[in-house]
Structure formats: structure tokens, C-alpha cells
């Protein structure tokens, strides 16, 4: 009755969100008096995978079939289901992502398992198996009891505070049989901005709205983001106007972020925007209008002109 954590590999390394999931899974395993096994699919070195031990896993199953080199929802779900069977796992943990959500859903379908997504903290096992999840786009939480034998949990960023142990995990090659039908969907092209920090994974996000006046002014936003090692984001009108790419827009109908620090520049703070950022730990708002609704949701605020304030903040960060 072990715990399995599905992890994602990006450029040969375990993703940060996946390591958080490993830690979450290891904590659940501890509560249940069992061990945590990691499933890693794709190309990575043994030394890299052994790092999962530092986050609490005892074993890593490594599936590295050439056909699994790119994220394939159906094939990955089959591999995960095989791992669950082999390890006789009761609980499956994943970090929320475009691949993780899809794989989690298909595995739940295969295992007839309850699936709860957007989980924000460790489960309560004192009476049944209860998890807390964010609902209504961050406007509320629900405590949910999972009744099925197998349980699938997709966690939100910052669901646990990770403590590294310094241990390392044993890595085993895992070669489940693959079905041809799993490869019916063909990816014919990938377009990815390679150099930027991934928005859902970022600890700091610098976000800007229509107050920036035009795409040509984004330099001051990027400068501050670079100085902070932050990802950039934007409001919906900004992506609708094509000032910034669609995958940068946060809010009710965009990406939901929960970084440690969210800096909003020239964004009014409409309820649909807040819905995507309200689980950030600290929110800073910079707006020239003292009545901007965003200040009500902020921890720190500056009433001022972004064209004046942002370059000064960048300078102050560089001076740290």
C-alpha cells in the first residue's frame, strides 16, 4: 500500500513542481506508515533522478522508452497505471499542470478512483481520507472525503513547505508494455519560448496590465522580472490585444498562479483577475489610481506611475 508520485522531466531535470509533489507524497506515505515511490518518464540521468530521495522518496521507477520522449497523455497514463499496479499503490500524487491534469484524469478513469484537484494542504487521515481543495477559482475551499480504494490527488503550488533531507533514492528501470493505440495522437510541432521562467512554477511573478499603454513598454516589466528572477504575466485585455502571448494571462479564464510574491503593475484588480492570483502569499500593487480595487487585495501598495516606479525598483533590487 505505497504512495506513487508522478513527476515531469524538463530538459533532463525533475521539474520544481514535481519535487514539491514528491515531498507531499513522502509526507502522506509517512502518515500511512509506508514508502513513497516516484515515477519519472523521459530522459534524465540516474544522479538527477536519485535527487528525489532528498525530497523523501525511497525509490524511483524510470521509464525511458524512446517513444515516451515527448509528453503523451495516453501513454503516460498507461505507464502510471502499470506502476500503481506493480507497487500496489493506494495514493497517487501529481502536481497540477497541463500534462499532470490530463494524466491524472485518465488514470482515475482506469483505476475507478476518486480524483481531487487543486489540493492545498496535506490530507487529514484522522477519520477517513480527507483533503482540502481550492474551489470557485480561489474564492473558497472545500474539505472532501475520498471514499474509493485508490485516490488520485493533484496538488496546487505551495501545498506543502518542502524540507530537504539530503538522502538519495534508488533508481530502477521500468519497462511496462506500451500499446500502439496510445500513440494515435500526433504532435506535429512545438512552439515554446525557451529562455523564460515557467509562469505556473515561478516563486515571483511580475505582472502588468493595460496601464503599460502598449507592448513597446514591456521592457521595464521584463527588467524588474529579470532582476528578481521572476516570470512575467499580464491581464486578459493585454493578451486579447496581442501585446503579450496568451499563455501569460492570469485570472479566472487564464493561468492560476500561487507564487510567494505577485507584483501587479498598472492592473485595476477586477474580480476576474484577482481570481487567478488570490492564493499568492504576498501581493504588491503599483497603480496611479489610489481607488484601484486591487489595493484591497494587496499586502503592499504604491500609488504612483509605473513608468517612474518600475525602473527605480529594478535599481533597488540590483543594489541588494
Amino acid at each position, binding site marked *: 500500500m505505497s504512495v506513487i508520485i508522478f513527476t515531469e522531466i524538463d530538459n533532463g531535470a525533475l521539474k520544481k513542481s514535481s519535487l514539491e509533489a514528491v515531498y507531499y507524497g513522502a509526507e502522506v506515505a509517512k502518515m500511512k506508515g509506508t514508502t513513497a515511490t516516484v515515477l519519472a518518464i523521459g530522459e534524465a540521468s540516474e544522479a538527477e533522478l536519485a535527487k528525489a530521495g532528498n525530497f523523501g522518496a525511497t525509490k524511483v521507477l524510470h521509464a525511458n522508452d524512446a517513444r515516451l520522449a515527448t509528453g503523451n497523455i495516453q501513454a503516460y497514463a498507461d505507464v502510471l497505471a502499470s506502476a500503481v499496479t506493480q507497487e500496489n499503490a493506494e495514493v497517487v500524487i501529481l502536481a497540477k499542470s497541463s500534462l499532470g491534469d490530463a494524466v491524472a484524469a485518465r488514470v482515475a478513469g482506469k483505476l475507478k478512483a476518486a480524483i481531487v484537484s487543486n489540493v492545498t494542504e496535506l490530507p487529514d487521515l484522522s477519520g477517513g481520507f480527507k483533503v482540502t481543495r481550492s474551489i470557485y477559482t480561489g474564492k473558497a475551499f472545500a474539505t472532501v472525503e475520498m471514499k474509493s480504494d485508490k485516490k488520485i490527488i*493533484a496538488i496546487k503550488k505551495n501545498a506543502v513547505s518542502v524540507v530537504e533531507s539530503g538522502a538519495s533514492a534508488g533508481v530502477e528501470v521500468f519497462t511496462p508494455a506500451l500499446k500502439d493505440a496510445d500513440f494515435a495522437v500526433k504532435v506535429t510541432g512545438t512552439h515554446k519560448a525557451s529562455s523564460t521562467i515557467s509562469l505556473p512554477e515561478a516563486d515571483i511573478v511580475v505582472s502588468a496590465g493595460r496601464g503599460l499603454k502598449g507592448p513597446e513598454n514591456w521592457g521595464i516589466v521584463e527588467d524588474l522580472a529579470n532582476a528578481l528572477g521572476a516570470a512575467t504575466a499580464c491581464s486578459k485585455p493585454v493578451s486579447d490585444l496581442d501585446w503579450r502571448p496568451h499563455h501569460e494571462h492570469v485570472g479566472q479564464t487564464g493561468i492560476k498562479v500561487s507564487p510567494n*510574491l505577485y507584483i501587479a503593475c498598472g492592473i485595476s484588480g477586477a474580480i476576474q483577475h484577482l481570481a487567478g492570483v488570490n492564493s499568492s502569499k504576498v501581493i504588491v500593487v503599483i497603480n496611479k489610481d489610489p481607488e484601484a480595487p486591487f489595493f484591497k487585495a494587496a499586502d503592499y501598495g504604491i500609488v504612483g506611475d509605473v513608468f517612474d516606479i518600475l525602473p527605480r525598483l529594478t535599481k533597488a533590487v540590483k543594489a541588494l
Partner: protein
Amino acid sequence: MKILVCVTSVPDTTAKISFTDGDTKFNKAGVTYITGPYDDYALSRAVELKEKLGGTVTVLNVGESDSEQVIRKCLAIGADDAIRVNCEPKDSYFTAVQIATIAAQENYDLILMGRESIDFNSGVVHGLVGEMLGIPSLSPVMKLEIEGTTAKMTREIEGGKEDIEASLPLVLGCQEPIAEWKIPNMRGIMTARTKPLRVVEPVGDDLTITEKFTLPAPKGACKMIPAENAEELIALLKNEAKVL
């Protein structure tokens, strides 16, 4: 082309969320219900495809009778008929079983959903239904063209997008800019009243029990920093908030 569109009836995006009965029930008082914004994209693309390629669009909702207002709006936008599974959609697995049970009785070429519902935001019902029917599921799809029995799509991934080709049938979770939102016209509203809406009873059991709801702790007051001392913010973030 035979298309099934799964829609949710959800609180308006500006709705204030609160609970009753000792925080065990959602408080519907004063809340306006709308079609899930992503489901609206799915429906709009379905109607566009029907107009271009012919065929039918069926709308499906797993929900209680108060979601019929949203279902009628979908019929007014251009769906031909509707099915409502008469129950509270308690969890993702249970909801997916209802959808898959209906879909298994008909041969839909496409099952379109929203990328996620805005009440539960799970983004998993399409994957569950795809697995239950044994067909591929993809989400979030931002472009969809049909050529014969092949679908050509663009899917958003972290930091970019990918182009995908797959044979029908498929289950897809949709998001903008897959289509322009359609607004019902007068004729649509008139004809919607007489379009068939079939109500069926649910099958199977739910796998979760929602015990209670909670609201986030209220934010403390915002600390204002005068613009002339803006640089102080950085020191506060480092030493007080400890996030740098």
C-alpha cells in the same frame, strides 16, 4: 458531424461566494448563473463547425433543474437538442460517468467541453470521459479544424503551444481563441423554447463526500509606501515579508 457539448451552469464570474447550513451548502441567494466561460467557447466552435460541415449539436448538462436556464441559452445559440442528467454533480468521477454513459449510446464524432469548470476548476472531466470511452482526450485546445475524419488542433502547454493531429472521435477541453463567443439572437431565443430537452436520471455512486466549505482568511490592511520612497518596498519585501 455529430457533436456533443458538455456545459456547466456556474455562478457569474463576479459572484460573491458564501455558504449556508453550517458551511455545508453553497448559498445560491442573489447569485446569477451563467454558462461556464470555457464551455461557451466549446459551444460556439461546435455551432461554427455545424454551420460549415452540417450535422447536429447536442448539449449535455449534469445538474439540477435550475440549470435549465443555461441549457435554453445554449439551444438559443444554435444547439439542436439537449439532455440534462438530473442530479447534483458531486464529483468529477461521478460527473464523467454520467457523460460517458450518454455518449456511449450515440456515436459522437466530437465531444467538446471547456478547459475547466469555474466552480471546481479541476480540468479533469474530459480526460475521465476520454478514458471511459477509450478515445483520446486533449486540453486546452485553442484551435480546432476538421478535415474529413482528422482533427488538426493547437494545444496550449506551459510557456507555449503545440500542433496536434488526431483521428475522430475525440474529447476536447476548449479555450479561447478557438471561437468567438456567440450571443443568442431573437429567432434563436424563440426556437429554443420548442427544441427538445430530455431529462434522464443518474447512474452509479459518487466517490467523494464534501464535508464542509471555508472562505479564505480576510486580508490584513495594505501597507502603503509613498511613491517618493518606492525603493523602501524592496527592503520590506526582503526583511519584513521575507519573500526576496
